[in-house]
């Protein structure tokens, strides 16, 4: 059996209503759970970028990307393994103020990419960003203090090789 792994799928599309539905339907049809998703504008005017993270086999992701790219309003779609990208996720943790000076929390804040972004009387908010494992680790450490709220963003990713995606996309303009 071919092994499943994390793939980051970047889809460059026109900016129209309904594209998300069309893309997600392709994952749904193959019973693939979307681990995370981010939509933003891209480096090119009027071109939107979807970033999906899915855990599937390489054979399957190749076929899925073929189907994604086939959609009329999709300009280009790519898939990358973890070592082909630089990526980031951000999380917010809301914790009761009674724990603000707790040593364990203060120690966690020494982690280079976590800091308090908001403090008020009843609670404070920690923002952390990094790889998924970093956020997971932070989550496990902070959970014992009672998380009043927790949220993690979808992945944002950029390729490691100087992949001339923009040049490729510019051609169509």
């Amino acid at each position: 059996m071919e092994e499943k792994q994390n793939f980051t799928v970047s889809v460059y599309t026109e900016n129209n209503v309904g594209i998300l539905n069309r893309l997600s339907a392709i994952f749904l049809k193959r019973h693939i759970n979307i681990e995370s998703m981010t939509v933003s504008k891209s480096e090119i005017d009027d071109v939107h970028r979807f970033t999906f993270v899915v855990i599937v086999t390489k054979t399957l992701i190749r076929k899925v990307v073929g189907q994604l790219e086939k959609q009329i309003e999709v300009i280009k779609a790519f898939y990358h393994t973890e070592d082909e990208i630089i990526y980031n996720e951000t999380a917010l943790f809301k914790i009761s103020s009674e724990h603000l000076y707790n040593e364990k929390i203060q120690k966690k804040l020494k982690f280079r990419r976590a800091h308090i972004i908001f403090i008020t009387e009843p609670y404070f908010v920690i923002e952390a960003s990094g790889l998924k494992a970093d956020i997971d680790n932070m989550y496990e450490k902070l959970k014992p203090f009672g998380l009043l709220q927790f949220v993690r963003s979808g992945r944002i990713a950029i390729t490691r090789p100087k992949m001339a995606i923009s040049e490729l996309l510019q051609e169509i303009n």
Partner: protein
Amino acid sequence: MKETQTIEIKDTSHKTDRIAGSEAIIRCLLEENVDILYGYPGGAIMPVYDELYKYQDKIHHVLTRHEQGATHAAQGFARISGRVGVCIATSGPGATNLVTGIADAQIDSTPLVCITGQVASHLLGSDAFQETDIVGISTPVTKWNYQITKASEIPEVMAKAFYIARSGRPGPVLVDITKDAQFEEIDFSYKKCEGIRSYKPVPETDNSKVQAAADLINTAKKPLIVWGQGVILGKAEKELKAVIEKAGIPSAWTILGASAIPTSHPLNVGMVGMHGNYAPNVLTNECDVLIAIGMRFDDRVTGNLDTYAKQAKVIHFEIDPAEVDKNVKTDIAVLGDAKTSLKKLLPLLNNKSHDDWHQKFKDLYAIEYDEVIKNDLYPTKEGLTMGEVLKEINIQTKGEAAIVSDVGQHQMIACRYAEFKNTRSNITSGGLGTMGFGLPAAIGAKMAAPEREVISISGDGGYQMTIQELGTIFQQKVAVKVVVLNNGFLGMVRQWQQLFFDKRYASTEMTNPDFVTIAKGYYLNAKRVTKREELADAVAEMIASKEAYFLEVCVEQEDNVFPMVPSGASVSDIRLK
């Protein structure tokens, strides 16, 4: 019938004039040379129907008896003519009733433009009367869809819809138009769509790939071509024939590829797949080079992929990059449309005959003939077979008819035994297997090609799924010939129950009405045949009829379709009994 009114129609050339969105839709259709559309009116599409009334001398609206019938009729129209089929329905149930036909068109690559009315834009999301999210519902089964909420969008979106439906690998497009956009006035001008920046319909054919394919074909000792509908959609029949003849390659077809090359062609070795011919199925696992042209290796064609043509190098001529390596790993993929690619291939091929290899097909055909075909076409038992009905139709139409089949046993028999002389003569629901497809599709086919003999062949099951379209045949005076092969069973399911479920016939027996009386109720000429000696005369009467004609043939109840590749088996393990 309504009295025809003479109405002044404004010139539809490119000058701008101020019209309502509803009229703009009709004007777009006229710009796209649409002269016939199939549909069913209702609240949210009434402004467009009002315009259809005014434009009735330019554009003929066919009122089907159910919206599903409208989509299948539009499919039949498209399949026989190569033009875009158009259908129209109201919001809510009207729109959802289109979905089966749209899904069928998507999987069988049929160009359709479906227009649906929608509640007014300020009511969207309010669960208004007959509101349904048809854009959401149809997304996975359309090539493209779009909801128009402003009349100003109509010309551009309609132009895109037709362009997308017909270009590249064709498919269905749905355009949903809110009622307020139909009322809103715009300055109308129309420009045909010639390209969309994010959409490349036809990949360029890479000459080096064509050369590599030619090299492989030239060195092959046992090459086999399997062609599909891509040849018909790409209008590459002539090019395919030239390739086959020059390289002397035995060539088989998928169900949707049927009729691209005449049945009688000496290198036409029959159908591949679950109920295909013995030789091409068995020899798929013996060929050294498998050349797939405009086909997509459907599981009904390949059987078990783990044992499919593993010994062969595979060349895939394909327009849709997403199909390459989807099911079968290819050694050489030649992207592009079939016509261009085959044209480039032809001069690179050596003249060959492969006589020994071709003899193998003949030998296996002889086995299939003795075990299956002889009994199907020249039965000695009392009951009529479906095969002998097809044989009689072949004889009396001289292979000139277009055969529109439904789904099931009769479909496999029709595709196996119909003798085709002309391309676009086999219209059937392949990928989706939509029972009920046949009758309405035959209506559309006959209306698109009135000069052709169009024969609808259905089983007693599928026929009753869209039987109400007899009303359309009667009202529109469509001279389609309707044959029902009645075995009193949902025959294909019953066959599987017999073979794989110990004959437990769960809900496959049909207690049927008097089909002849029903046809007569729709004022159609109708006849029932129960004995062999009545068959030839009845078929002759049907063919001679200038009007629609209904023929029921009561066939043996528990005949099975063979050969058969059991589900999950290898194509070379095809059973003859």
